[in-house]
């Protein structure tokens, strides 16, 4: 195995670690409201969070997702390595396809989830929330693979919303409309090599663009020029968090603790407890955590992530969840008022026995501050399908030309 770290040493000492799009994002960030993501500095809000949210739902939003951890896995045993790493069958992933996948430690507890790109027979790219080079290196013992940290070398943009396809076509991505969900293809945009995948974290029609760091600013400019008619707008992380909640997507170390950070062994979460059993394939041969997961499957989950629809319109962020108003059965990890669904929605982790009860009498303890005065609400909640927002356009190929 060969491990290429590619760390940009000097950057660690800078207060602001810019992404390849920083010159463009900083010019567009009117609010000066920044946040850090995996060590990088990115806008949380450019101007107005609500406006940015509606940009994605109604036209097209541009998100700088360069801080995503990106790893390239190449070599004769790349497929065998990925298959032993992931809980799903990497052999079924064809070149030109992308898959949502997760990976576990020996205890069957999820370390992180992300998207796996198959760029060639012996060529994969793994994109995820947390730094994973350590885990990937440790997993590579005995495999003929080369693992490269591409995080700093690649700029990444999420281009999401109903008009995303139309703008990309105008920008020069010929045939982009034939891309099915989870397809990935290389394009040449007047001399710039761009990989475009029909993937995203917003639950809407959308694409993600992967480009060499040096070409990143030019790509940004091209997209905005091509989209003049459709008015693409930069979108910050605050809006993304709402968008992904509506889509029912979970975030590592927000909605569940990564096994790498769990100090107590029983705090780790199995894929079953995340509601992602569809991503576990016991028939594909051995993978890390398989034996523990077989046992976990036999014992059944102890907790479950569920989606809640809560009465009133006050977001229930971090609230405790009670059964029958008394017994504490879980807590909320992400919550918001959904402007599109017009519902007060949340993701919560509940005891499995409660989560599986038919119509449990759930109450959510919400604290609301009005003019610096706190009020406590005990709001009723019911368990609903996790995909709060799931439009047909997300799946249709070719997408309608909005």
């Amino acid at each position, binding site marked *: 195995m060969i491990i290429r770290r590619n760390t940009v040493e000097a950057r660690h000492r800078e207060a602001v670690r810019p992404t390849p799009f920083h010159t463009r994002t900083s010019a567009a960030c009117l609010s000066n409201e920044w946040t850090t993501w995996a060590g990088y500095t990115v806008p949380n809000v450019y101007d107005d969070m609500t406006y940015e949210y509606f940009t994605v739902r109604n036209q097209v939003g541009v998100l700088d997702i360069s801080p995503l951890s990106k790893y390239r896995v190449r070599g004769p045993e790349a497929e*065998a390595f990925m298959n*032993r*790493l992931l809980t799903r069958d990497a052999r079924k992933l064809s070149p030109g396809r992308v898959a949502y996948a997760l990976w576990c*430690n*020996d205890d069957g507890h999820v370390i992180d989830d992300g998207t796996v790109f198959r760029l060639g027979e012996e060529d994969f790219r793994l994109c995820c929330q947390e730094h994973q080079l350590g*885990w990937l290196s*440790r*997993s590579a*013992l*005995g*495999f003929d693979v080369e693992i490269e940290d591409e995080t700093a070398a690649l700029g990444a943009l999420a281009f999401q919303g109903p008009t995303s396809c139309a703008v990309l076509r105008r920008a020069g991505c010929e045939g982009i409309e034939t891309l099915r969900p989870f397809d990935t293809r290389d394009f040449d945009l007047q001399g710039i090599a761009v990989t475009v995948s029909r993937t995203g974290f917003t639950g809407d029609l959308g694409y993600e663009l992967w480009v060499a760091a040096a070409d990143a600013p030019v790509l940004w400019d091209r997209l905005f020029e091509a989209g003049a008619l459709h008015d693409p707008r930069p979108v910050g992380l605050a809006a993304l968090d709402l968008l992904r909640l509506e889509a029912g997507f979970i975030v590592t170390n927000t909605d569940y603790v990564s096994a790498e950070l769990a100090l107590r*062994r029983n705090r780790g979460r199995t894929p079953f407890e995340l509601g992602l059993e569809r991503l576990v394939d016991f028939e594909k*041969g*051995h993978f*890390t*955590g*398989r*034996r*523990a997961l077989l046992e976990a499957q036999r014992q059944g989950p102890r907790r479950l992530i569920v989606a809640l629809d809560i009465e009133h319109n006050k977001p229930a962020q971090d609230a405790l969840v009670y059964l029958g108003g008394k017994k504490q059965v879980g807590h909320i990890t992400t919550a918001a008022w959904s402007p599109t669904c017009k519902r007060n929605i949340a993701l919560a982790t509940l005891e499995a026995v409660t989560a599986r009860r038919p119509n449990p009498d759930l109450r959510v303890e919400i604290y609301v501050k009005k003019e610096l005065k706190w009020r406590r609400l005990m709001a009723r909640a019911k368990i609903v399908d996790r995909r709060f927002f799931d439009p047909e356009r997300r799946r249709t190929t070719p997408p309608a030309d909005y």
Partner: protein
Amino acid sequence: MSSSFDAVVIGAGHNGLVAGTYLAKAGRKVLVLEACGSPGGAAASEEIAPGYQVPTYAHLLFNLDPVVVRDLRLERHGLRYAKGAMATAALDRDGRHLIIGEGLEGLGGRGIAATDLSAWSDMSARLRRFAVTLAAFLAKTPPRLGSGGWDENRTLLELGWKIRRLGRDDMREFLRVVLSNVADLVEDELEDPLLQAAIAFDAVLGGWTGPRSPGTVLPLLYRLTGDSAGLPAARRLPQGGVGALTQAMAGALREAGGSLRCDARVARVRVEGDRATGVVLEDGETIAAGSVLSSIDPKRAFLELIGPHHLDAEFAQRANQIRMKGATAKLNLALSAPPLFSGLDTTQQAERLLIAPSIDDMEVAFNALKYGELPQTPPMEIVVPSLADPSIAPDGGHVLSAVVQYVPFAVKGGWDAVREDFQTSLIAQLEAYAPGLKDSVVAAQLLTPADIEERLGTSGGHWHHGELAADQMLMLRPFQGAAQYATPIDGFYLCGAGAHPGGDLMGTAGRNAARRVLRREGTT
């Protein structure tokens, strides 16, 4: 051609033979596979000059499991002792040697201060009490941590109870010293440098530790748990050389109906549906088996025979990180005349001889090892087995066997460049204690840790298939998750020195592993 067995054992060293014999005695169809041309592993003899049979690697028995000897009726299969209950002579450059009686009893030879005599009497008795506390635990399958099972926790409770039963003062002392270093232990109570070093030698023999390395008291206690005919830690010399032990074991295996095949190197264990279903030999032959037991070191067993593809990532890492850097070499000499160690009488010449002048001398030799250099005067354990057992050398000739401590696996400059000089310096070191020895050398064999790895296949050439240290003993041997003979691969077991209780010529690991296999069969 393919064949099928209830159990296939990889490696015909003492543990492999013991495991195979127990299974065969229980009525299983057993095949023991050996990569070399003859059985024996680290308990083998070979001829290095016409008529000169040397103990190639290990040369003494001192904690051979008495239950194994009884169950396998090894004495009926030809195990005899040329010399039992050997004393130790710690050699002094000026001829004022120290004699430690068999079983740690009695000190003699050089003038020992009265304070040392009484201190040693207290200390050796105390160490033996501690060893008895540990001994019961060593014979058992260690508990699996975090399993919460009653059986597992009971074993832990029993150890706790045994420590408690030592009494308040002994318990405190046990807990105080058990993880500390052996130099502190002996320097606290004893004055004589030869005596200090002789005790320390037993704590570091075969390991990559110096007397001042943390955790060296535990291996000392572990060695004291052995007993030879009721005498704790007494050394014995098998008649006909150490190879006679494994010959007797091979006889027991045959009598029990088990088969042995030599020159059959296993390339990999066949794993189907997360279960070991047999082995594939280097020539491609497949042998199907209900259970596969490996007596080779756990690092190779997991990473080469099973392969990381069949293992969880952290598990494979733990296998890869077993500490097993060999630090022990072997010097075997064929001599045309008896070596005469000055200052020892005729009977003393045939005892176990130690060259370890002081703790500091040992530590200095260990320093060289740390940096991949050759020690100037490495500590040695010397036996002249032909004095008690003339059958292993031609008339008038003798065999000298020396275990040489603190020899690096990878030496600076490479072994080819320094091997000859090092061998000469070792013989010169012996010559200083036994004048005339050099001129009587007929043939010499130096086996470095690298040679041992090549010949026996043990990673790093480590004598114990993994350092004997607190973090790799008991329920952590060879590492957490693999410590109960059974492994995550159903049907694949560890039965060698890399499993609990560990190295030296004990046979307990082989016996425990066989019992585990039979118990597992019973439950499925």
